[in-house]
């Protein structure tokens, strides 16, 4: 109990109006489906709403609507498509608070993050890609869209992942059928309403909810020209197999096990912040999370001590409290996975530590955790945990750090902490990762391309490069 306790500072829920149920958004209208499932608030396990399950017939209808809309959408002058996207961007800005609260309720992430990180990026992605719609001839990838894009997104940044998918697809003249994750469908459904508010022509955006089976039906649909998937490497592999032999274009953004490398000449206090942000931001539910700390042996003891001291000020709790740093784990299934791998970490001989935390009794919660004494041979150094769990390894020289950082089938991101520019650039050159953060971490911008090497996927989202995936 510190001298300065922060009183509860709850963000009000009343700004968002959640309907008891939602249908599928196809061809500009919501329509009921035969089956439904519930979506819950992972912080309290309360049911938020009932959401439809799209079956084969529904998927077919959605793809057909997208196909019909494609002809006129792709024929529109780019400047007109741009203005639709600018409208959407503006509406998102105006409704940001409402959407942020909804995102925190459905996903479990702290309101501070949905309000200050997710929503601003969502709006920014639409603004950025709106501006490309009438400038494709300057981008270097041609000007011919692919057709109908099937897009399947994960639960960790629901609305932001939707923006990363829909904005470039629409700007380039494609139409989409998007399936949000089964545990986080609500912000996508609200987005459907925003499309209506913007008077987007029916069929240009279709939102169908469901679980793995719906996703499979969608990506395997024969009349889809493009598949874009963000999720686990396991499912990504299945999708790559399913499009083999077809003409479907594919982009994948999969898992990671990023190394966050701290050299002895790092700006130490900022490096500690960067490590903490790297693994505890969004409860560690981040594909590019810095889940392996590689710290130079000469400073490892003092660094880990500073890290533990900093972790003790992390606030775990109600996602709608404005002072919460770490929210709920998204689902019971994910919580089980994180717990299991953590047990394995201890069993394999790594030393486990968490700061004292009062975790609520209902909902899905996991205290921020670090494992020291981890080596490359440990499962917790190789497998993606996708939770607030950091594995700490050491290295002696830059060459060794690079070798260890690259020694993984993944290759999404990496962090480098040092005050020496030539070291940073040389190490960055040799790391096999698609996004490299030096003296910072988890920084995203619509102008900055994002995507992985190796089994972290292929294709880039964001920037001029992000147009390529949606053009012929």
């Amino acid at each position, binding site marked *: 109990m*510190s001298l300065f306790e922060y009183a509860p500072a709850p963000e009000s829920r009343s700004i968002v109006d959640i309907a008891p149920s939602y249908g599928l958004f196809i061809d500009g209208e919501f329509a009921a489906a035969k089956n439904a499932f519930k979506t819950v608030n992972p912080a309290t396990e309360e049911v938020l709403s009932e959401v439809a399950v799209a079956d084969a017939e529904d998927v077919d209808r959605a793809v057909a609507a997208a196909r019909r809309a494609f002809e006129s959408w792709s024929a529109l002058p780019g400047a007109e498509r741009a203005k639709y996207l600018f409208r959407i961007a503006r509406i998102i800005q105006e409704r940001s608070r409402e959407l942020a609260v909804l995102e925190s309720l459905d996903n479990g992430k702290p309101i501070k993050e949905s309000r200050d990180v997710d929503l601003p990026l969502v709006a920014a992605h639409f603004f950025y890609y709106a501006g490309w719609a009438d400038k494709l001839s300057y981008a270097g990838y041609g000007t011919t869209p692919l057709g109908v894009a099937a897009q399947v997104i994960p639960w960790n940044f629901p609305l932001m992942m939707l923006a990363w998918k829909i904005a470039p697809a629409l700007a380039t003249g494609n139409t989409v059928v998007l399936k949000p994750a089964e545990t986080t469908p609500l912000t996508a459904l609200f987005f459907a309403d925003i499309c209506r508010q913007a008077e987007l022509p029916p069929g240009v955006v279709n939102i169908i909810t469901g679980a793995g089976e719906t996703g499979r039906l969608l990506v395997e649909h024969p009349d889809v020209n493009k598949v874009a998937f963000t999720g686990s490497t396991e499912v990504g592999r299945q999708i790559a197999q399913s499009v083999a032999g077809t003409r479907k274009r594919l982009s994948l953004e999969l898992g990671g096990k990023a190394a966050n490398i701290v050299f002895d000449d790092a700006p130490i206090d900022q490096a500690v912040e960067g490590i903490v942000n790297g693994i505890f931001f969004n409860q560690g539910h981040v594909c590019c999370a810095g889940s392996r700390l590689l710290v130079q042996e000469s400073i490892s003891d003092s660094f880990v001590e500073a890290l533990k001291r900093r972790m003790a000020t992390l606030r775990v709790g109600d996602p709608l409290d404005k002072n919460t740093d770490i929210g709920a784990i998204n689902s019971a299934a994910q919580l089980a996975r994180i717990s299991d791998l953590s047990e394995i970490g201890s069993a394999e001989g790594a030393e486990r530590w968490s700061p004292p935390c009062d975790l609520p009794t209902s909902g899905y919660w996991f205290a921020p955790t670090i494992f020291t004494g981890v080596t490359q041979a440990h499962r917790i150094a190789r497998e993606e945990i996708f939770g607030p769990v950091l594995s700490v390894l050491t290295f002696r020289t830059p060459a060794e750090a690079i070798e260890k950082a690259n020694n993984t089938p993944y290759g999404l991101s990496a962090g480098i902490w040092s005050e020496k520019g030539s070291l940073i650039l040389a190490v960055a050159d040799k790391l096999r990762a698609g996004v490299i953060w030096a003296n910072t971490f988890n920084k995203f911008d619509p102008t900055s391309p994002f995507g992985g090497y190796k089994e972290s996927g292929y294709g880039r989202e964001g920037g001029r490069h992000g147009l390529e995936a949606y053009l012929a």
Partner: protein
Amino acid sequence: MTATMLPASDLRSVLRGLPGVDKVGVEARAAALGTRSIKTTAKAAAIDLAIRMVDLTTLEGADTPGKVRALAAKALRPDPADPNCPSVGAVCVYPAMVPYVYEVLKGSGVHLASVATAFPSGQAPLDVKLADTRDAVAAGADEIDMVISRGSFLAGDYSAVFDEIVAVKEAAGPAHLKVILETGELGTYDNVRRASWLAMLAGADFIKTSTGKVPVAATLPVTLVMLEAVRDFRAQTGRQVGVKPAGGIRTTKDAVKYLVLINETAGDDWLSPDWFRFGASSLLNDLLMQRTKLTTGHYAGPDYFTVD
């Protein structure tokens, strides 16, 4: 004797060997801490603590005995309408004004800080600066706020700065010494860290950001760097040093952000007027207005608080 005597070259190595500060990172961290939402009971407690931490200051050429007596009276009883309102931490004035403040404050527990050493520029011979210090203490000051020689620091003559602080500390006798780094003139956060360590190694009891007389005064990121420095210094040497941001802190909202900074960086041990002060003047009335709003439930206006 709290100075750690070091030959010049070692002093240079120690200061240059401190970890660097990344500007973008430190400013982002300070800004993130500034988004903490401090409401209701937490806010009330923070306001009272902030009031107790105020070094109520007047450092004008136009200061007179009448002016400083009035300020000292306000320092003792900031809100005449509420006897429960705590007194401030100290009153801070020029050496010539010390005797008049002493008459009002003596025996009250509110400290009497005097600026010294040819404040604010520090551009005077050493013997003048030491005389300045001794006279202020003799007149009743129990705290001395000195300025470092920025010229020597920026020219890399760390020993000159160090020796001067040691000399002033000695001249100050029993009074506790705050060393003003004038962070707005140091140029980089790295220099703020180095100047902080330099002052602490030389025996400072408190490190202070600014004189309030140059355009850039206290900021959250600068204070964050100084809080990290005092935390690390204590971990390394066992000695605790206080921090005083001064100048430009005008609202309760600002003051609360500083308290959050302390809370999540240096920790509980610095959450007390013995180890943290605000160098401010108009801040006090804003704290009083916010305090009153919490007790009465409506917004107050300036007419309801004394001008001094």
